[in-house]
């Protein structure tokens, strides 16, 4: 098994996802060499890599962030959006700018709006076990298990708890398993008589519930496969 070179490039998020990667370091080092701003002595530079994990949403008003993201794209064989900010925009979708000393920083977008990505792993932050499982699937070529991450990467519209209600709960597909309530990082979902209820004030638009829902994830994969089929 060839050892991979894995890099983390952060676009200026909360650092939670970078810390998740750091926490997974003992397991990641079984798959390859890991480089991030936390592991190098001085002057972190993006070099050619097998996998680059991008964390944080991209500020569309910050040319430096956009350049950094494009550089990551050019240097990566596989580019992965890690965490809900990079995947869907997350909490930064609420940003409205106007705040000193950079009032021009107004629009924060998922990184797929700027570059093509191969995989997306939502979560606020994604736990180390998810990152390690993803790398294991990747290195052992388990395409079936990677389909969901590919499907999320291909989405044009970000997901949230509202989409879960519309697509799964209100349409009668919900089986009341509670996976959404367990995965919600803000406890915005509660199960009432085996039906998820969304506390709308607490939803941060991370989309984790949608991807963890067994029914919604099936929908995502099926739509993705249909899209591929229609293109070919």
């Amino acid at each position: 098994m060839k050892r991979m070179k894995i890099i983390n490039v952060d676009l200026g998020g909360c650092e939670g996802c970078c810390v998740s990667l750091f926490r997974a370091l003992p397991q990641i080092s079984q798959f390859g060499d890991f480089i991030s701003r936390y592991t190098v002595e001085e002057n972190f530079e993006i070099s050619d890599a097998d996998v680059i994990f991008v964390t944080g949403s991209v500020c569309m008003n910050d040319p430096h962030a956009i350049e950094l993201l494009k550089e990551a794209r050019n240097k990566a064989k596989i580019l992965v959006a890690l965490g809900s900010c990079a995947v869907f925009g997350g909490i930064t979708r609420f940003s409205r700018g106007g705040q000193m000393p950079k009032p021009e920083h107004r629009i924060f977008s998922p990184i797929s709006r700027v570059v093509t990505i191969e995989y997306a792993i939502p979560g606020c932050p994604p736990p180390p076990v998810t990152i390690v499982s993803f790398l294991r699937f990747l290195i052992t070529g388990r395409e079936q298990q990677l389909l969901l991450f590919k499907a999320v990467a291909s989405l044009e519209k970000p997901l949230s708890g509202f989409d879960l209600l519309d697509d799964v709960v209100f349409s009668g597909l919900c089986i009341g398993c509670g996976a959404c309530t367990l995965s919600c990082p803000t406890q915005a979902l509660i199960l009432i008589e085996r039906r998820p209820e969304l506390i709308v004030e607490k939803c941060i638009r991370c989309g984790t519930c949608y991807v963890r829902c067994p029914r919604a994830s099936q929908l995502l994969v099926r739509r993705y496969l249909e899209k591929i089929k229609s293109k070919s």
Partner: protein
Amino acid sequence: MSQKIVELTRIAGDAKFYIFHDGKRVLRAHFIATAPVRGFEKLAIGKHPLLLIEAAMRVCGICHAAHGIACSEALEHALGLAPPFAGRLLREAIGLLNRIQSHLFVIALVLGDMFKKKELQRELLLKIVQNLEKINRILTRLGGAPTHPPYLTIGGVLRPPTPQVIKFAKDNLATVLNDFQKIKDLHFDEDKWSERIEKLAEVKLSPKFLASHPFYGDRYNVNPTQVKVFTYDEYRPDAKEIGKESSACIAKYGNNFIEVGPRARLVVYRDFNDYRLIGVHLARILEVELCLERTLEILDIIDIHESIRAPELTLHEGKGVGVYEAPRGTLFHFVELDSMGRVKNFKVVVPTMFNIPIIEKAAEKLPPDLAPLVARIYDPCIPCATHFIKV
């Protein structure tokens, strides 16, 4: 005079250090944060207070619970609420676990500078990551998640721990405390220090210190009206061009630049008097032990059958301030609610905003190659510091 620009690594977030030197000594240093301004204070306007707590925790993925607690305290002050005794204790335990997490993380990042021997660095790194995971598992059970713990809420904590959770937490904390003794002893063994750390130990700096509480935070032990915020170019008019690049701001307490953080807490509340630059890091090590002991004490006295959340929550107009001792020092959250109980104004002043001038001052006492190390020792947090609203 020569100029050197160092992109700092092994700190939380993106920052550059502009170093002006004569080859032997730093003459002038500028700490410039370069991360984008996500604008949480503006983002919060018009939002429900419950979302505000979730948003505040996402200011930082390292000191998440500190922001959650400071924000809850500010909202409770605005609404005339207080958490019950057990809720307050549980919140303190969650905050202390976050402080231990953050300190262990920084100790791991500084290992490469700290010790001469690579094998020792590797051995300690593994030990620290293992203990960090134990702390994460405890925080998951007590706070709901290891990062951005969702059980923190207005008026207390959402869910009480079960007796099994208390036992799990106590057992694991005891093993972490035991393991940490060796880590602590090695850090205090000056024979094992690297040459760079030895040089850092030769320089002293004793600025004014500010701390509000050894373990939690107390708005009555400090004066929040004394907090003043400046843009970087207002603070350093001698570096206007460089200052324009900065996405962080600077805070003063009264007319003074002050140091906040682990050393400040130990100087104010304990008999700590190590004013060497390395003293900041040694204070951090001592604080981990103190926090582990205090968390164990809390778990001994907490009655899980008592109420942990204020019984009623009525949203109305109000103003409040939350002061909390975050891992990096005193954190201020100012909140104003409108007549519907929605957020009208929100301001955050974080410890790194106080510490940036101290980091620059400390660098001026060193040779140019040691300047980045002093920034790392002070543990600045860039995601927190990229905020600016005049207070």
